[in-house]
């Protein structure tokens, strides 16, 4: 009983080895190509994040300037009105 169990075990292992041994695999150059591609993606993601931050900062600066400009135009009208009364 013990003998037959060991036999099955050995046979299974040999079969698995044969099955994996026959599959084709990428060579070192191809693997490097894949790694380079991954690195390029990471770099692009970083660049996009940086640009998005820059865009957000610019949008804030623009909003501030728009508010300042509106205030300045309002002030101009007020000053003109006050100067008339002087």
């Amino acid at each position, binding site marked *: 009983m013990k003998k037959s169990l060991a036999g099955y075990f050995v046979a299974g292992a040999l079969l698995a080895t044969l099955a994996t041994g026959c599959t084709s695999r990428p060579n070192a150059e191809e693997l490097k190509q894949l790694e380079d*591609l991954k690195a390029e993606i990471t770099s692009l993601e970083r660049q996009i994040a940086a640009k998005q931050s820059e865009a957000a900062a610019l949008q804030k600066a623009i909003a501030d300037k728009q508010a300042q400009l509106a205030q300045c135009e309002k002030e101009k009208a007020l*000053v*003109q009105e006050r100067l008339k009364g002087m």
Partner: protein
Amino acid sequence: MNMKLMKSVILVAALVLFVGSTAAAQEMTKDEWQKQMTEFTAKRNQLKSNLTAVQAEVDKLKKEDAALAAALKKCNDDLMALVGADAAAERAFAAKLDEIDAKINELSRLSNQDLWARKGEIDDVQKMLDEVKKNKLSALSKYYERIKEQQNRLDALKKTLETAQLAMTYTVGTWAKDRDCLWNIAKKPKIYDNAFLWPKIWQGNKDKIKNPDVIKKGQVLSIPPKADLTKEEKAAVRSYWNKKKAAEQPAAAPAKQ
């Protein structure tokens, strides 16, 4: 014994082969590599396209920001042109306002009596304030509001002065009982504690006292805050004594005839 050893060797070898084949099965196959290459290439291309789009957005925003900065500068320049001032004139104007602020702060800290003694300075500050109000720079909101606040504070000081003046009064008693005359009233410790300041009470109540030698019982006299006699008060005293002398002289004059 040999048989047992043989079995053990076979078992270990089978185990090693099994583990080795499992690890090999976990390595990437060519198909998987190809699949990942395709997937990542597509992702890279998409990211490149995204980067181009974000860059274009940033460039557009930069242009917009620059245009707004220019518009803002023009608006500020227009504003300064409206009030006809340059940076140096504005600095001088702001310094004048600081000076007014300092004066008002100083006067605000004074007691009512000291404030009365320096009431002329309130008028001086009012003149300074009137002067800055004529400057076109005062139309700028930042100065306009400040000047308005300064005027309010100065008005409050004037009000304090008026209230202080109204608050100090003395009701004249009788000569028989109180020995009340301007000299004695001024001498009272609660009034001036200085009889020589009597002209102050006289001049402060010109509407009620025509002749300083005559005050009536029940008259309510306002008492100006204690201070040295002013030029006007001194002149009034001189005039009072001259009139007194003149009134005494007619008796001797006819002798000259």
